[in-house]
Protein backbone atom coordinates (compact mmCIF):
# COMPACT_ATOMS: atom_id res chain seq x y z
CA UNK A 1 0.00 0.00 0.00
CA UNK A 2 1.16 3.53 -0.83
CA UNK A 3 1.74 5.70 2.20
CA UNK A 4 -0.55 8.70 2.33
CA UNK A 5 2.03 10.82 4.10
CA UNK A 6 5.78 10.41 4.09
CA UNK A 7 8.11 12.33 6.34
CA UNK A 8 11.70 12.05 5.24
CA UNK A 9 14.32 13.29 7.68
CA UNK A 10 12.23 16.23 8.84
CA UNK A 11 14.32 18.66 10.83
CA UNK A 12 13.43 21.92 12.51
CA UNK A 13 16.11 24.24 13.74
CA UNK A 14 15.10 27.39 15.56
CA UNK A 15 17.72 29.95 14.69
CA UNK A 16 16.80 33.23 16.28
CA UNK A 17 19.06 36.23 16.36
CA UNK A 18 21.05 36.46 19.56
CA UNK A 19 20.15 32.94 20.63
CA UNK A 20 21.84 29.62 20.21
CA UNK A 21 20.61 27.35 17.45
CA UNK A 22 18.12 24.86 18.78
CA UNK A 23 17.15 21.66 17.05
CA UNK A 24 13.58 20.95 18.10
CA UNK A 25 12.95 18.16 15.61
CA UNK A 26 15.91 16.08 14.54
CA UNK A 27 15.79 13.99 11.34
CA UNK A 28 12.46 12.34 11.85
CA UNK A 29 11.21 9.92 9.23
CA UNK A 30 8.00 7.94 9.20
CA UNK A 31 5.20 6.86 6.95
CA UNK A 32 1.50 7.11 7.50
CA UNK A 33 -0.75 4.65 5.67
CA UNK A 34 -4.39 5.24 4.77
CA UNK A 35 -6.76 4.60 7.63
CA UNK A 36 -4.13 3.92 10.27
CA UNK A 37 -3.55 5.83 13.46
CA UNK A 38 -0.03 6.78 14.36
CA UNK A 39 0.57 7.77 17.94
CA UNK A 40 3.39 10.11 18.90
CA UNK A 41 4.30 10.28 22.57
CA UNK A 42 7.02 12.14 24.35
CA UNK A 43 7.52 14.45 27.26
CA UNK A 44 6.89 18.17 27.21
CA UNK A 45 9.40 19.93 25.00
CA UNK A 46 10.31 16.86 22.98
CA UNK A 47 9.16 18.54 19.78
CA UNK A 48 5.78 16.94 19.20
CA UNK A 49 3.90 20.16 18.49
CA UNK A 50 6.71 21.42 16.30
CA UNK A 51 6.54 18.20 14.29
CA UNK A 52 2.75 18.52 13.99
CA UNK A 53 3.11 22.09 12.77
CA UNK A 54 5.69 21.01 10.22
CA UNK A 55 3.45 18.28 8.87
CA UNK A 56 0.59 20.75 8.58
CA UNK A 57 3.02 23.28 7.11
CA UNK A 58 2.12 25.87 9.73
CA UNK A 59 5.82 26.28 10.37
CA UNK A 60 8.64 26.08 7.87
CA UNK A 61 10.61 22.88 7.45
CA UNK A 62 14.33 23.51 7.89
CA UNK A 63 15.51 20.28 6.33
CA UNK A 64 14.03 17.10 4.95
CA UNK A 65 11.06 16.39 2.74
CA UNK A 66 7.37 15.90 3.18
CA UNK A 67 5.19 14.02 0.72
CA UNK A 68 1.42 13.93 0.60
CA UNK A 69 0.07 11.09 -1.56
CA UNK A 70 3.43 10.91 -3.30
CA UNK A 71 3.55 14.63 -4.09
CA UNK A 72 6.15 16.75 -2.42
CA UNK A 73 4.68 19.52 -0.28
CA UNK A 74 7.79 20.51 1.68
CA UNK A 75 7.84 24.06 0.40
CA UNK A 76 4.63 24.56 -1.55
CA UNK A 77 2.85 27.86 -1.10
CA UNK A 78 -0.37 29.61 -2.02
CA UNK A 79 -2.84 27.57 -4.03
CA UNK A 80 -0.86 24.32 -3.84
CA UNK A 81 -0.68 24.59 -0.06
CA UNK A 82 -4.37 25.34 0.15
CA UNK A 83 -5.00 22.23 -1.91
CA UNK A 84 -2.91 20.23 0.56
CA UNK A 85 -5.15 21.54 3.35
CA UNK A 86 -8.07 19.78 1.70
CA UNK A 87 -6.38 16.58 2.85
CA UNK A 88 -4.67 17.61 6.08
CA UNK A 89 -6.56 19.02 9.03
CA UNK A 90 -5.69 19.55 12.64
CA UNK A 91 -7.27 19.65 16.08
CA UNK A 92 -5.47 21.85 18.56
CA UNK A 93 -4.65 21.40 22.22
CA UNK A 94 -6.56 24.36 23.58
CA UNK A 95 -10.06 24.28 22.07
CA UNK A 96 -11.19 27.79 23.02
CA UNK A 97 -8.04 29.39 21.61
CA UNK A 98 -8.47 27.62 18.30
CA UNK A 99 -11.66 29.52 17.51
CA UNK A 100 -11.70 33.22 16.65
CA UNK A 101 -13.17 34.89 19.77
CA UNK A 102 -15.17 37.26 17.57
CA UNK A 103 -16.83 34.63 15.42
CA UNK A 104 -19.41 31.98 16.13
CA UNK A 105 -18.54 28.30 16.18
CA UNK A 106 -20.76 27.82 13.13
CA UNK A 107 -18.71 30.40 11.27
CA UNK A 108 -15.50 28.63 12.19
CA UNK A 109 -16.80 25.21 11.22
CA UNK A 110 -18.05 26.48 7.87
CA UNK A 111 -14.99 28.54 6.99
CA UNK A 112 -13.24 25.89 4.91
CA UNK A 113 -16.41 25.19 2.96
CA UNK A 114 -17.00 28.88 2.39
CA UNK A 115 -13.42 29.21 1.11
CA UNK A 116 -14.28 26.50 -1.39
CA UNK A 117 -17.22 28.43 -2.75
CA UNK A 118 -20.10 26.64 -1.01
CA UNK A 119 -23.09 28.97 -0.65
CA UNK A 120 -23.88 30.51 2.72
CA UNK A 121 -27.13 28.59 3.21
CA UNK A 122 -25.50 25.27 2.43
CA UNK A 123 -22.54 26.05 4.68
CA UNK A 124 -24.93 26.71 7.54
CA UNK A 125 -26.79 23.48 6.94
CA UNK A 126 -23.56 21.53 6.76
CA UNK A 127 -22.25 23.15 9.96
CA UNK A 128 -25.38 22.12 11.83
CA UNK A 129 -25.15 18.60 10.41
CA UNK A 130 -21.50 18.33 11.46
CA UNK A 131 -22.31 19.62 14.93
CA UNK A 132 -24.97 16.95 15.27
CA UNK A 133 -22.53 14.30 14.10
CA UNK A 134 -20.15 15.42 16.81
CA UNK A 135 -22.84 15.33 19.45
CA UNK A 136 -23.79 18.99 19.71
CA UNK A 137 -27.21 20.53 19.15
CA UNK A 138 -27.74 23.02 16.29
CA UNK A 139 -27.90 26.02 18.63
CA UNK A 140 -24.14 25.74 19.20
CA UNK A 141 -23.61 27.10 15.70
CA UNK A 142 -24.57 30.54 17.00
CA UNK A 143 -22.50 30.41 20.18
CA UNK A 144 -19.16 32.11 20.68
CA UNK A 145 -16.12 30.15 21.89
CA UNK A 146 -16.30 31.69 25.36
CA UNK A 147 -19.90 30.57 25.71
CA UNK A 148 -19.22 26.84 25.58
CA UNK A 149 -17.31 24.39 27.74
CA UNK A 150 -13.91 23.04 26.77
CA UNK A 151 -15.32 19.67 25.79
CA UNK A 152 -18.08 21.21 23.69
CA UNK A 153 -15.56 23.48 22.03
CA UNK A 154 -13.29 20.55 21.21
CA UNK A 155 -16.25 18.74 19.63
CA UNK A 156 -16.82 21.81 17.49
CA UNK A 157 -13.11 21.83 16.61
CA UNK A 158 -13.39 18.23 15.47
CA UNK A 159 -16.46 19.14 13.42
CA UNK A 160 -14.46 21.95 11.85
CA UNK A 161 -11.55 19.68 11.01
CA UNK A 162 -13.85 17.14 9.37
CA UNK A 163 -15.89 19.67 7.36
CA UNK A 164 -13.64 19.52 4.32
CA UNK A 165 -13.42 15.69 4.50
CA UNK A 166 -9.66 15.40 4.97
CA UNK A 167 -7.65 12.21 4.56
CA UNK A 168 -5.36 12.99 7.48
CA UNK A 169 -6.30 14.35 10.88
CA UNK A 170 -3.59 15.57 13.22
CA UNK A 171 -4.61 15.75 16.86
CA UNK A 172 -2.06 17.68 18.90
CA UNK A 173 -2.90 16.77 22.48
CA UNK A 174 -6.54 17.20 21.60
CA UNK A 175 -7.64 15.93 24.98
CA UNK A 176 -4.94 17.26 27.29
CA UNK A 177 -6.83 20.37 28.31
CA UNK A 178 -9.95 18.41 29.27
CA UNK A 179 -10.86 16.48 32.40
CA UNK A 180 -10.80 12.70 32.40
CA UNK A 181 -14.46 11.93 31.66
CA UNK A 182 -14.65 14.48 28.86
CA UNK A 183 -11.33 13.17 27.59
CA UNK A 184 -12.96 9.75 27.24
CA UNK A 185 -15.92 11.19 25.31
CA UNK A 186 -13.67 13.05 22.90
CA UNK A 187 -11.59 9.91 22.33
CA UNK A 188 -14.77 8.01 21.55
CA UNK A 189 -15.85 10.69 19.11
CA UNK A 190 -12.46 10.67 17.41
CA UNK A 191 -12.53 6.88 17.24
CA UNK A 192 -15.99 6.87 15.68
CA UNK A 193 -15.10 9.52 13.10
CA UNK A 194 -11.90 7.70 12.22
CA UNK A 195 -13.84 4.49 11.51
CA UNK A 196 -16.73 6.11 9.65
CA UNK A 197 -14.62 8.30 7.44
CA UNK A 198 -11.54 6.08 7.13
CA UNK A 199 -9.28 8.92 8.14
CA UNK A 200 -5.62 8.43 8.86
CA UNK A 201 -4.82 9.94 12.20
CA UNK A 202 -1.69 11.30 13.81
CA UNK A 203 -2.43 11.29 17.48
CA UNK A 204 -0.04 13.27 19.64
CA UNK A 205 -0.13 12.76 23.35
CA UNK A 206 2.15 12.69 26.34
CA UNK A 207 0.17 9.97 28.04
CA UNK A 208 1.22 6.50 26.95
CA UNK A 209 -1.85 4.93 28.56
CA UNK A 210 -4.22 6.93 26.43
CA UNK A 211 -2.66 5.99 23.09
CA UNK A 212 -2.13 2.34 23.87
CA UNK A 213 -5.60 1.23 22.83
CA UNK A 214 -6.15 3.96 20.26
CA UNK A 215 -3.16 3.67 17.94
CA UNK A 216 -2.00 1.12 15.42
CA UNK A 217 1.57 2.27 15.58
CA UNK A 218 3.57 4.30 18.03
CA UNK A 219 6.54 6.66 17.84
CA UNK A 220 8.27 7.71 21.02
CA UNK A 221 10.06 11.05 20.79
CA UNK A 222 12.79 12.30 23.04
CA UNK A 223 14.67 15.54 22.52
CA UNK A 224 13.50 15.81 18.94
CA UNK A 225 14.48 12.27 17.93
CA UNK A 226 12.54 9.07 17.55
CA UNK A 227 13.78 6.69 20.22
CA UNK A 228 11.23 3.93 19.75
CA UNK A 229 8.94 2.74 17.02
CA UNK A 230 6.47 -0.11 16.75
CA UNK A 231 3.00 -1.27 17.69
CA UNK A 232 1.93 -0.14 21.16
CA UNK A 233 2.24 -3.69 22.48
CA UNK A 234 5.74 -4.12 21.11
CA UNK A 235 6.84 -0.84 22.56
CA UNK A 236 5.39 -1.53 25.96
CA UNK A 237 6.61 -5.11 26.19
CA UNK A 238 10.10 -4.60 24.83
CA UNK A 239 11.16 -1.03 25.40
CA UNK A 240 14.60 -0.46 23.97
CA UNK A 241 15.47 2.96 25.34
CA UNK A 242 15.67 3.99 28.96
CA UNK A 243 13.37 6.90 28.33
CA UNK A 244 10.58 4.60 27.12
CA UNK A 245 11.02 2.45 30.20
CA UNK A 246 10.51 5.52 32.34
CA UNK A 247 7.39 6.42 30.37
CA UNK A 248 5.97 2.95 30.88
CA UNK A 249 6.72 3.00 34.57
CA UNK A 250 4.92 6.31 34.85
CA UNK A 251 1.74 4.73 33.45
CA UNK A 252 1.84 1.50 35.44
Amino acid at each position, binding site marked *: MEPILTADNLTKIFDEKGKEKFTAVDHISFQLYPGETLGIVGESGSGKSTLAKMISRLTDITEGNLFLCGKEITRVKGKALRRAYEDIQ*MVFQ*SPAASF*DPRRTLGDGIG*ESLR*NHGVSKVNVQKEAVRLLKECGLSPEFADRYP*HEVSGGQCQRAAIA*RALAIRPKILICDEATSALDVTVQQQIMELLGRMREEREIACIFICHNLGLVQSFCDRLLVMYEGKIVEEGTPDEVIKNPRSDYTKELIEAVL
Partner: protein
Amino acid sequence: MREDKKTPSVRKLRVRKSHIKTRLVLFLLLTAALMLTVIFAQQICPYDPNAQDTSISLQPPSLEHLAGTDRFGRDMFSRILVGLQTSVLSTLCLVVIITVAGTAAGILCGYYGGILDSVVMRISDVCLAFPGLVFALAIASLLGGGLHNAVFALAVISWPKYARIARSQTLSVKNTDYISAARLAGGNSIQIIIRHVLPNSIGPILVTSMLDIGTMLMELAGLSFLGLGAQPPTAELGNMMSGGRSMLQTYPWVIIGPGIAIFAAVVIFNLLGDTFRDYLDPRNSRRN
Protein backbone atom coordinates in the same frame (compact mmCIF):
# COMPACT_ATOMS: atom_id res chain seq x y z
CA MET B 1 -24.47 33.54 32.01
CA ARG B 2 -25.32 34.61 35.50
CA GLU B 3 -23.41 33.59 38.55
CA ASP B 4 -25.20 32.74 41.74
CA LYS B 5 -22.38 33.62 44.05
CA LYS B 6 -21.47 37.25 43.78
CA THR B 7 -18.23 38.17 45.43
CA PRO B 8 -17.88 41.80 46.47
CA SER B 9 -15.28 42.47 43.81
CA VAL B 10 -17.60 41.17 41.12
CA ARG B 11 -20.34 43.46 42.36
CA LYS B 12 -17.94 46.37 42.40
CA LEU B 13 -16.98 45.55 38.83
CA ARG B 14 -20.62 45.50 37.82
CA VAL B 15 -21.20 48.90 39.39
CA ARG B 16 -18.13 50.31 37.72
CA LYS B 17 -19.21 48.85 34.41
CA SER B 18 -22.69 50.33 34.58
CA HIS B 19 -21.16 53.59 35.71
CA ILE B 20 -18.97 53.59 32.63
CA LYS B 21 -21.97 52.84 30.47
CA THR B 22 -23.85 55.87 31.80
CA ARG B 23 -20.84 58.04 31.17
CA LEU B 24 -20.46 56.64 27.70
CA VAL B 25 -24.08 57.38 26.85
CA LEU B 26 -23.79 60.89 28.28
CA PHE B 27 -20.66 61.73 26.31
CA LEU B 28 -22.04 60.12 23.18
CA LEU B 29 -25.03 62.44 23.45
CA LEU B 30 -22.73 65.42 23.96
CA THR B 31 -20.68 64.40 20.94
CA ALA B 32 -23.83 63.91 18.90
CA ALA B 33 -24.93 67.44 19.82
CA LEU B 34 -21.53 68.78 18.82
CA MET B 35 -21.61 66.88 15.55
CA LEU B 36 -25.11 68.12 14.74
CA THR B 37 -23.93 71.67 15.36
CA VAL B 38 -20.94 71.04 13.13
CA ILE B 39 -22.89 69.45 10.31
CA PHE B 40 -25.65 72.05 10.25
CA ALA B 41 -23.42 75.03 11.03
CA GLN B 42 -24.34 76.80 7.79
CA GLN B 43 -28.02 76.34 8.49
CA ILE B 44 -28.06 77.45 12.13
CA CYS B 45 -25.72 80.41 11.96
CA PRO B 46 -27.81 83.57 12.32
CA TYR B 47 -25.80 85.73 9.89
CA ASP B 48 -23.70 85.17 6.81
CA PRO B 49 -20.29 84.43 8.38
CA ASN B 50 -18.47 86.28 5.62
CA ALA B 51 -20.74 89.33 5.29
CA GLN B 52 -18.72 92.41 6.19
CA ASP B 53 -20.24 95.55 7.68
CA THR B 54 -17.58 97.94 8.95
CA SER B 55 -20.19 100.14 10.59
CA ILE B 56 -20.65 97.52 13.29
CA SER B 57 -17.03 96.38 13.64
CA LEU B 58 -15.65 95.14 16.96
CA GLN B 59 -18.91 95.30 18.88
CA PRO B 60 -18.97 93.48 22.23
CA PRO B 61 -21.32 90.49 22.69
CA SER B 62 -25.00 91.50 22.74
CA LEU B 63 -28.34 89.83 22.16
CA GLU B 64 -28.07 90.69 18.48
CA HIS B 65 -24.51 89.42 18.08
CA LEU B 66 -24.10 86.73 20.72
CA ALA B 67 -20.32 86.65 20.46
CA GLY B 68 -19.78 90.17 19.25
CA THR B 69 -18.35 91.18 15.88
CA ASP B 70 -14.83 91.19 14.51
CA ARG B 71 -12.88 94.00 12.96
CA PHE B 72 -14.71 93.68 9.63
CA GLY B 73 -18.05 93.68 11.37
CA ARG B 74 -18.66 89.99 10.73
CA ASP B 75 -20.84 88.18 13.24
CA MET B 76 -18.47 86.23 15.51
CA PHE B 77 -21.08 83.66 16.56
CA SER B 78 -21.74 82.68 12.95
CA ARG B 79 -18.03 82.60 12.23
CA ILE B 80 -17.37 80.43 15.29
CA LEU B 81 -20.02 77.93 14.14
CA VAL B 82 -18.62 77.76 10.64
CA GLY B 83 -15.05 77.78 11.92
CA LEU B 84 -15.90 74.90 14.22
CA GLN B 85 -17.24 73.06 11.20
CA THR B 86 -14.03 73.57 9.27
CA SER B 87 -11.86 72.58 12.22
CA VAL B 88 -13.82 69.52 13.32
CA LEU B 89 -14.47 68.13 9.85
CA SER B 90 -10.86 68.47 8.74
CA THR B 91 -9.72 66.95 12.04
CA LEU B 92 -12.02 63.97 11.59
CA CYS B 93 -10.78 63.65 8.04
CA LEU B 94 -7.21 63.65 9.32
CA VAL B 95 -7.92 61.07 12.01
CA VAL B 96 -9.65 58.78 9.52
CA ILE B 97 -6.71 59.08 7.12
CA ILE B 98 -4.05 58.29 9.72
CA THR B 99 -6.12 55.48 11.25
CA VAL B 100 -6.73 53.77 7.93
CA ALA B 101 -3.25 54.33 6.52
CA GLY B 102 -1.45 53.46 9.76
CA THR B 103 -3.54 50.38 10.42
CA ALA B 104 -3.16 49.07 6.89
CA ALA B 105 0.60 49.60 6.96
CA GLY B 106 0.97 48.08 10.44
CA ILE B 107 -1.13 45.00 9.73
CA LEU B 108 0.61 44.27 6.44
CA CYS B 109 4.04 44.70 8.08
CA GLY B 110 3.13 42.51 11.03
CA TYR B 111 1.53 39.84 8.91
CA TYR B 112 4.06 39.54 6.11
CA GLY B 113 7.23 40.66 7.92
CA GLY B 114 10.42 40.51 5.90
CA ILE B 115 11.60 43.30 3.66
CA LEU B 116 8.22 45.06 3.55
CA ASP B 117 8.27 45.24 7.33
CA SER B 118 11.82 46.61 7.51
CA VAL B 119 11.25 49.22 4.82
CA VAL B 120 7.94 50.53 6.15
CA MET B 121 9.17 50.56 9.74
CA ARG B 122 12.32 52.48 8.75
CA ILE B 123 10.14 55.05 6.96
CA SER B 124 8.04 55.38 10.08
CA ASP B 125 11.22 55.83 12.12
CA VAL B 126 12.16 58.73 9.87
CA CYS B 127 8.73 60.28 10.42
CA LEU B 128 9.20 59.94 14.17
CA ALA B 129 12.83 61.05 14.22
CA PHE B 130 12.02 64.77 14.50
CA PRO B 131 9.90 66.45 17.13
CA GLY B 132 6.39 66.03 15.75
CA LEU B 133 4.99 69.52 15.43
CA VAL B 134 8.28 70.99 14.25
CA PHE B 135 8.41 68.44 11.47
CA ALA B 136 4.79 69.12 10.59
CA LEU B 137 5.55 72.83 10.49
CA ALA B 138 8.42 72.19 8.12
CA ILE B 139 6.32 70.04 5.81
CA ALA B 140 3.38 72.43 5.84
CA SER B 141 5.54 75.46 5.07
CA LEU B 142 7.38 73.49 2.39
CA LEU B 143 4.04 72.73 0.78
CA GLY B 144 2.96 76.34 1.18
CA GLY B 145 0.20 76.26 3.79
CA GLY B 146 -3.48 75.71 3.17
CA LEU B 147 -5.83 73.39 5.01
CA HIS B 148 -5.15 70.37 2.80
CA ASN B 149 -1.42 70.68 3.23
CA ALA B 150 -1.75 71.13 6.99
CA VAL B 151 -3.81 67.93 7.17
CA PHE B 152 -1.21 66.16 5.05
CA ALA B 153 1.66 67.41 7.22
CA LEU B 154 -0.03 66.22 10.40
CA ALA B 155 -0.85 62.89 8.75
CA VAL B 156 2.82 62.37 7.94
CA ILE B 157 3.88 62.77 11.57
CA SER B 158 0.96 60.81 13.07
CA TRP B 159 0.51 57.64 11.05
CA PRO B 160 3.52 55.78 12.52
CA LYS B 161 1.87 55.55 15.93
CA TYR B 162 -1.04 53.66 14.38
CA ALA B 163 1.25 51.52 12.28
CA ARG B 164 3.12 50.50 15.42
CA ILE B 165 0.03 49.61 17.41
CA ALA B 166 -1.46 47.70 14.48
CA ARG B 167 1.81 45.89 13.89
CA SER B 168 2.24 44.72 17.45
CA GLN B 169 -1.41 43.67 17.65
CA THR B 170 -1.02 41.73 14.43
CA LEU B 171 2.13 40.03 15.65
CA SER B 172 0.35 38.73 18.72
CA VAL B 173 -2.78 37.69 16.82
CA LYS B 174 -0.76 36.04 14.06
CA ASN B 175 0.62 33.33 16.32
CA THR B 176 -2.69 32.22 17.78
CA ASP B 177 -4.23 28.85 17.06
CA TYR B 178 -7.27 30.40 15.43
CA ILE B 179 -5.12 31.93 12.73
CA SER B 180 -3.51 28.52 12.20
CA ALA B 181 -7.01 27.08 11.95
CA ALA B 182 -7.96 29.75 9.42
CA ARG B 183 -4.93 28.81 7.33
CA LEU B 184 -5.91 25.17 7.49
CA ALA B 185 -9.38 26.18 6.36
CA GLY B 186 -7.75 27.24 3.10
CA GLY B 187 -8.11 30.99 3.42
CA ASN B 188 -5.66 33.19 1.58
CA SER B 189 -3.76 35.92 3.40
CA ILE B 190 -6.17 38.70 2.48
CA GLN B 191 -9.17 36.71 3.69
CA ILE B 192 -7.41 35.86 6.93
CA ILE B 193 -6.41 39.48 7.52
CA ILE B 194 -9.89 40.82 6.89
CA ARG B 195 -11.82 38.10 8.71
CA HIS B 196 -9.57 37.44 11.70
CA VAL B 197 -6.59 39.75 12.10
CA LEU B 198 -8.34 43.07 11.62
CA PRO B 199 -11.34 42.45 13.92
CA ASN B 200 -9.06 41.14 16.66
CA SER B 201 -6.58 44.02 16.44
CA ILE B 202 -8.83 47.00 15.88
CA GLY B 203 -9.90 47.69 19.50
CA PRO B 204 -6.79 49.52 20.78
CA ILE B 205 -6.43 51.28 17.42
CA LEU B 206 -9.93 52.72 17.62
CA VAL B 207 -9.34 53.84 21.19
CA THR B 208 -6.18 55.62 20.11
CA SER B 209 -7.92 57.40 17.28
CA MET B 210 -10.75 58.49 19.57
CA LEU B 211 -8.21 59.88 22.02
CA ASP B 212 -6.34 61.54 19.18
CA ILE B 213 -9.27 63.57 17.87
CA GLY B 214 -8.80 66.23 20.55
CA THR B 215 -5.03 66.39 20.10
CA MET B 216 -5.31 66.61 16.33
CA LEU B 217 -7.94 69.34 16.61
CA MET B 218 -5.49 71.37 18.70
CA GLU B 219 -2.55 70.73 16.39
CA LEU B 220 -4.50 71.56 13.26
CA ALA B 221 -5.77 74.76 14.87
CA GLY B 222 -2.17 75.42 15.94
CA LEU B 223 -0.90 75.18 12.36
CA SER B 224 -3.69 77.49 11.23
CA PHE B 225 -2.83 79.87 14.05
CA LEU B 226 0.68 80.04 12.66
CA GLY B 227 -0.73 80.78 9.23
CA LEU B 228 0.02 77.35 7.77
CA GLY B 229 -3.52 76.00 7.80
CA ALA B 230 -6.79 77.41 6.54
CA GLN B 231 -6.28 80.76 4.83
CA PRO B 232 -8.55 83.79 5.37
CA PRO B 233 -11.33 84.49 4.61
CA THR B 234 -12.16 80.84 5.38
CA ALA B 235 -13.38 80.76 8.95
CA GLU B 236 -11.36 78.27 10.99
CA LEU B 237 -10.92 78.45 14.74
CA GLY B 238 -7.13 78.61 14.65
CA ASN B 239 -6.83 81.39 12.10
CA MET B 240 -9.66 83.31 13.78
CA MET B 241 -7.68 83.36 17.01
CA SER B 242 -4.57 84.30 15.12
CA GLY B 243 -6.41 87.17 13.38
CA GLY B 244 -7.58 88.53 16.72
CA ARG B 245 -4.43 88.03 18.75
CA SER B 246 -3.40 91.71 18.68
CA MET B 247 -6.80 92.63 20.12
CA LEU B 248 -6.73 90.32 23.12
CA GLN B 249 -6.58 93.22 25.58
CA THR B 250 -8.81 95.71 23.81
CA TYR B 251 -11.47 93.49 22.22
CA PRO B 252 -11.06 90.13 23.99
CA TRP B 253 -14.22 88.52 22.53
CA VAL B 254 -12.66 88.11 19.07
CA ILE B 255 -10.19 85.67 20.54
CA ILE B 256 -12.04 84.25 23.55
CA GLY B 257 -15.00 83.05 21.48
CA PRO B 258 -13.04 80.76 19.14
CA GLY B 259 -10.88 79.74 22.12
CA ILE B 260 -13.89 78.52 24.05
CA ALA B 261 -15.13 76.66 20.97
CA ILE B 262 -11.82 74.81 20.56
CA PHE B 263 -11.68 74.09 24.26
CA ALA B 264 -15.22 72.73 24.33
CA ALA B 265 -14.72 70.54 21.27
CA VAL B 266 -11.42 69.16 22.56
CA VAL B 267 -12.88 68.41 26.00
CA ILE B 268 -15.88 66.63 24.54
CA PHE B 269 -13.79 64.46 22.23
CA ASN B 270 -11.30 63.65 24.99
CA LEU B 271 -14.02 62.72 27.46
CA LEU B 272 -15.58 60.46 24.88
CA GLY B 273 -12.21 58.90 24.04
CA ASP B 274 -11.37 58.28 27.69
CA THR B 275 -14.72 56.72 28.41
CA PHE B 276 -14.52 54.61 25.30
CA ARG B 277 -11.15 53.31 26.45
CA ASP B 278 -12.48 52.50 29.91
CA TYR B 279 -15.45 50.81 28.32
CA LEU B 280 -13.27 48.52 26.21
CA ASP B 281 -10.74 47.91 28.97
CA PRO B 282 -10.98 44.20 29.79
CA ARG B 283 -10.25 44.93 33.43
CA ASN B 284 -13.60 46.65 33.67
CA SER B 285 -15.59 43.91 32.06
CA ARG B 286 -16.11 40.30 32.81
CA ARG B 287 -16.09 37.91 29.93
CA ASN B 288 -17.90 34.77 30.88
